[in-house]
């Protein structure tokens, strides 16, 4: 970096502060660490550029179920019955009505849920959004032609076992649409939090007339504030305003920029460099994916650049899992030995250091355990090798560990820590795309592996039962309970908590269950990460949304007018 760019950077930052105080100064000074937006000077117009190292896997609302693109789709292209507030911190985890007029009314102890649509809702061509279009999209999530999306509808809806989707004309009876404004869901069992479930893109409208099967992915029809102008997959997506979207019906989406361009297939390190420099058009650009840890080393020492980095807690827990179905890790003692031998501090450094990662000591992230991280074992951060050796009782272990290619540093840190106690680990890096297949085949599950879990919405119910219930294990394509952990007492406890109607009590019970499972140690939680995302100097309203794993909330992003 030359001296001149640095001076220019300093000047711009100063101008930004003055601009803020000129506005009346009700807002606090921008800061990255406390979850507040990086800068807050909303203005309509301009072009926001999103620099991405990848293509969206699915923008089709039926199939969109991975974190960054869920946020992107829901905030820009389609609306759902309810949605999360567009606010940082805990407030972001609250839901508000979106297409619906309220958060839904339930009857029959939560087995039937009814939503009413707002007036004046329109698609990008001006045709009205009707209740049947939402029903149609939910039905699409059953179609084998359109896999990959959230499976909540299949799990919750009544009389849907044999249903194979609407593409061949069959409709689902357990969703009723008595008129264009009303939609009624009939469920198998009571679901108290169904109002949260309908924030998922499965509950966005898709007009039947626009059905294109798998090709719909390339041109989803917009009900949100933007529509697709061009989409050259893997290269560029251009969004322009949807003139028929009515801001009066939408309390969440701000839709500041006139145009949003997503440039895909760039190298992440190049994206980082461009945003650090933030010159020319990069001024109004943001990063789609996390900055690399090497780039963090460039960003952290520079306060003005660091101020442009959003780093919200992702809400996910990173774990090292065991195959508990076969030796040596069918023995809880051996698993505990690893628990003690692991050097979590080295893992933390590998994950970007204390600025970016907190050492995890329980499964539930602090947000799900009342804001307070619990620590069951109280092991020092660098591990307790003596205790580990005592548990191993003179034995040495030779085990395999499968990691995804991007987690090499993590794998090496684990390997080096365990070696101290006589546990020799052979690392097998596997490409991320086949990683979950490898874990999911119970015949081939490696001795050790890394795994992460993020709650779908802030509730212990989307966490512990999903990964520790022994009844969910399937032979192939196993996910969630990848450690094949079967424990009658834990399962009984899960059923007990799920039957609770008191949310407070349930939350406390989940925390207790967390402790109980930690004793058995089917997996070792090691990191609660922040999501580091860099934005250009001219970007406004950038903050990490707590529900979408700390991804930028696309509803509030804007660019400064030049």
């Amino acid at each position, binding site marked *: *970096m030359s001296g001149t760019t640095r001076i220019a950077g300093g000047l711009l930052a100063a101008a930004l502060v003055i601009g803020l105080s000129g506005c009346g100064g009700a807002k606090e000074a921008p800061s990255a660490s406390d979850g507040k937006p990086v800068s807050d000077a909303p203005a309509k117009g301009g072009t926001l550029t999103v620099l991405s190292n990848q293509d969206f896997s699915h923008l089709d609302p039926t199939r969109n179920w991975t974190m960054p693109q869920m946020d992107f789709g829901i905030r820009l292209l389609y609306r759902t019955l309810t949605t999360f507030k567009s606010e940082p911190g805990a407030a972001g985890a609250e839901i508000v009505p979106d297409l619906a007029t309220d958060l839904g009314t339930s009857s029959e102890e939560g087995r039937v849920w009814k939503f009413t649509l707002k007036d004046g809702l329109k698609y990008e061509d001006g045709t009205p959004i009707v209740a049947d279009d939402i029903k149609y999209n939910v039905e699409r999530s059953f179609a084998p032609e359109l*896999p*990959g999306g959230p499976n909540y509808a299949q799990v919750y809806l009544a009389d849907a076992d044999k249903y194979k989707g609407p593409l061949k004309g069959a409709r689902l009876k357990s969703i009723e649409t008595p008129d264009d404004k009303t939609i009624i869901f009939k469920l198998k069992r009571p679901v108290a939090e169904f109002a949260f479930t309908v924030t998922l893109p499965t509950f966005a409208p898709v007009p039947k007339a626009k059905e294109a099967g798998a090709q719909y992915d390339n041109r989803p029809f917009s009900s949100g504030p933007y529509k697709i102008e061009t989409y050259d997959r893997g290269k560029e997506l251009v969004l322009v305003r949807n003139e028929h979207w009515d801001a009066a019906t939408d309390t969440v989406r701000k839709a500041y920029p006139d145009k949003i361009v997503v440039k895909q297939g760039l190298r992440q390190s190049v994206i980082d460099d461009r945003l650090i420099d933030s010159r020319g058009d990069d001024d109004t650009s943001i990063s789609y994916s996390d900055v690399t840890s090497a780039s963090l080393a460039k960003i952290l020492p520079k306060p003005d650049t660091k101020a442009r980095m959003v780093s919200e807690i992702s809400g996910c827990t990173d774990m090292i899992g065991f195959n508990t179905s076969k030796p040596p890790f069918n023995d809880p003692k051996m698993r505990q030995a690893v628990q003690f031998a692991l050097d979590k501090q080295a893992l933390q450094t590998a994950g970007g250091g204390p600025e970016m990662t907190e050492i995890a000591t329980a499964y539930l992230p602090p947000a799900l355990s009342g804001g307070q991280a619990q620590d069951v074992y109280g092991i020092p951060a660098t591990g307790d090798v003596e205790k580990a050796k005592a548990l191993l009782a003179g034995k040495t272990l030779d085990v395999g560990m499968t990691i995804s290619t991007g987690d090499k540093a993590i794998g090496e840190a684990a390997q080096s820590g365990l070696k101290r106690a006589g546990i020799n680990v052979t690392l097998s890096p596997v490409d991320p795309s086949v990683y979950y297949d*490898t874990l999911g085949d119970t015949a081939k599950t490696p001795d050790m592996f890394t795994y992460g879990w993020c709650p779908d919405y802030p509730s212990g119910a989307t966490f512990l039962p999903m990964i520790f219930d022994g009844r969910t294990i399937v032979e192939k394509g196993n996910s969630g309970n990848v450690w094949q952990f079967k424990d009658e007492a834990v399962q009984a406890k899960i059923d007990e908590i799920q039957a609770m109607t008191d949310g407070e009590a349930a939350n406390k019970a989940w925390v207790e269950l967390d402790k109980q499972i930690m004793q058995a140690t089917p997996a070792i939680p090691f990191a609660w990460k922040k999501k580091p995302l860099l934005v250009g100097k001219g970007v406004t309203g950038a903050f990490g949304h707590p529900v979408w794993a700390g991804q930028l909330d696309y509803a509030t992003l804007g660019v400064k007018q030049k």
Partner: protein
Amino acid sequence: MIIYLSKRLAAAAGILLVICAVTFVIFYVVPSDPALQACGKTCTPERVAEVRAQMGLDRPIWEQFGVYVVGIFAGRTLAAGVECGFPCFGFSYQNSLPVWDLLVDRLGTSVSLAIGAAVLWLIVGLTVGVISALRQGTTLDRSLMIATLTSASLPVYFVAMLLLLFVVRVTEILPYPAYVELAEDPMAWASNLILPWVTLAALYAAMYARLSRAQMIETMAEPYIRTARAKGLPERTVVVKHGMRAAMTPIVTIFGMDLGGLLAGAMITETVFGLPGIGRLAYDGIVKSDQPVILGTTLLAAFFIVLANLAVDLVYAVIDPRVRYS
């Protein structure tokens, strides 16, 4: 000649078919299951089976292969009733786009990259080679040869990173490379491709300089050059008309092969500079186990290589009739 040509064409087609079959088999035994991947996070075994049937993956391998090969020429209809017209290379598992469209789309980038770099390295490489040859043994010759050796010994990505660091990051002479279509904005197209061109050209120019120098020295020692000189022709004419022409013949053939290889995608250069070319497409396909894309890119790449070989052989056959009967 016609018999020779048809024989060669048949051989080329055979090679392509075998390459297709080998690729097909390799990715048939791959540990990852495309159906499982498509199915998403939590997926019941029944649903995986449905998805597999949907994708046509439940049929035996030879049947899938037959369908694929016939589809290339005749087009085919997929299970969901989606038409895949000629030439049908299937649909990407990743984004459901026809692989042929993806190939056509990415080819522009690879062609832009290859042709631009080729022009650059031919000019620089041959100039350096010829000058070195004519000044054989001088300090100029030696320093040029040291430079080319150095340049040839540096890995492509090393050069690429240095260029990015100095031309883009430090001096800010050029913007970060981002591919722009030629038709869209020729100036932006060129300025964004300069660095990749230079990167590739640095490697090839060095090889061509060394090669053309050697050829040139050999040719200039031939008796007919002496004869030409003795006839009193100007040195310029001797060098250009007699020397270079003869020296270039083997270079032209190697150039054909190199260009063929590059048209098939310069994987590392495209990756470093984030250019959406064939090499990048192939790499992404492999990484994501996107079998139709891998098959398509491999076949296209093999096609270019086979085509280049064929062209080179044909040129030889025209020059030297003996080849046809050997």
